[in-house]
């Protein structure tokens, strides 16, 4: 979990949850594999059929804006994507991603220098992304969110610990 390596799919700014998983699908089923067949459909209709396990999405600002649908990070994760790197995220998407166990990294500096198809490496523990032979630092993920991520999302976290990490606060 702590080191992630993969091939990049690039997207622009304001990739909304309507582009990630159009509303018309999410009202009909909660079968994640069925929903994942439509991952990123609004932004790139070929994405779901061509994405490989371990690939990384790199995008601009405000990724995941729009509705609160958790199906958005779910379909990205179930399509095989191992992490999303963006200049910035919409806040509900950001929370949801950790809750479903999808690592998301805010690193505005690295995005423009990464090309589609390039291999990048992310070290979650060190807060470092390596692309094109260069290293970029990002603000480390807060420890309690890291705990949820390492447990495999909020459901697994609760099952494992019988409570929520923030309850002790």
């Amino acid at each position, binding site marked *: 979990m702590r080191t992630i390596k993969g091939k990049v799919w690039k997207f622009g700014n304001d990739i909304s949850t309507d582009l990630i998983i159009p*509303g018309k699908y999410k*009202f009909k089923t909660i079968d994640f594999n069925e929903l994942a067949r439509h991952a990123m459909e609004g932004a790139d209709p070929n994405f779901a059929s061509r994405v490989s396990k371990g690939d990384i999405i790199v995008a601009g600002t405000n990724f995941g804006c729009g509705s*609160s*649908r958790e199906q958005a990070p779910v379909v990205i994760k179930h399509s095989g994507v191992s992490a999303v790197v963006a200049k910035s995220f919409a806040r*509900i998407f950001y929370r949801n991603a950790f809750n479903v166990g999808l690592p998301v990294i805010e690193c505005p500096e690295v995005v423009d220098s990464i090309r589609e198809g390039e291999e990048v490496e992310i070290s979650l523990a060190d807060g470092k992304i390596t692309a094109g032979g260069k290293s970029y630092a990002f603000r480390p993920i807060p420890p309690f969110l890291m705990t949820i991520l390492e447990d495999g999302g*909020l459901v697994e976290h*609760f099952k494992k610990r019988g409570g*929520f990490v923030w*309850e002790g606060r």
Partner: protein
Amino acid sequence: MGMTLAEKIISGKIGREPAPGEIVVLPIDAAMAHDGTAPLMIKSFEEMGAKSVWDKQKAIFVIDHISPSSNEGTSVLHKMMRDFARRHGITLYDVGSGICHQLLPEKGYVFPGGVVVGADSHTCTHGAFAAFSTGIGSTDMAAVFASGKLWFKVPETLRVNITGQFRKNVMSKDAILFAIGEIGADGATYKAVEFTGDSVVGMTMDSRMTMTNMAIEMGGKTGLIASDAKTRQFLKGRTRACFVELEADRDAPYSDELEIEAAKLEPMLSCPHQVDNVKPVSDMEGKEVDQVFIGSCTNGRVEDLRIAAKVLAGKRVKARTIVMPASREVLLDCLREGIVEDLVRAGCALGVPGCGPCVGGHHGIPSNGEVVISTTNRNFRGRMGNAESDVYLASPLTAAHSALNGKFTVPGGI
């Protein structure tokens, strides 16, 4: 240093002054999920092995997004919600009750100083009642249903201060579209947006809810308005909660401020396919429109339908026009006032109280190349169910005048 409205509400819960950026755990006063998010919430809740809902009086389900169901898949998910609600003894507002964000205040779940979470991004609407209210995902909601608490990062606050009189043809929708155009779709990310100024004080609760509803369209965590006599009047007989009037301190620290002179605003449009792509209606005047939708949690209240009815009474729409009241209570008020009759006689199609075509599931999906004027809150590509259509967001007044002419029309006065 004084506190912003968001900080005041949070401090009321934790018993001390919070610092922006700090993570706090807050007890929840109302938690809502709808048919787009509850099924996944139920799945997470059950997979967690949670046994019971923390407080049956504070957990609410609403079937509003695809309501009534349009297909078998949705019907299965609706049944899943009804079964869960029955099993756990929580309230479910079924088909025809209305939109969650209209129902929560109507049914008394929202009050000044309360903390409200909804598995829907437009939960920020309830900040119009000086409640700290924000959208969360399904699994966060499962955690709330199980424990009654959730973590939040204390937000900084962006203030939108609106002063002076609006022109006769300008509504609060035009003001919020203008503000989103200025701030941008992500300009308020992680921040609370507080609406202040004498123009906001002068607004009805219906108009205020339109403003806070769209705070999320600039990335805001919640939209907030100080409570006053109007808030109290609306909540009278609805909530049993005891509350005090809440407003920000005079010396509250704001991270950013936007000043708007109401008198300078004109009717606005949000153009395809981004909410922050905002232009005056006059830029588009005369462009043909195929479908008009008046409704939603943004603009489906009595005031909105009353304004549309005033424009359309005794006349005939030229564009296909769909009207949906935001709730059963709104529909009943509109029936009593004769608003429904005026709209239906003018050729509008009246729908069941609910979200309708706003989310693109049913009840008015546009065809390829069609142009829609909608009083809703989002115009992302594909939002109304067809990626090949163009959706423009506008006020009910602009929508009604445009429906009448079959063309984008700068409205006359109310």
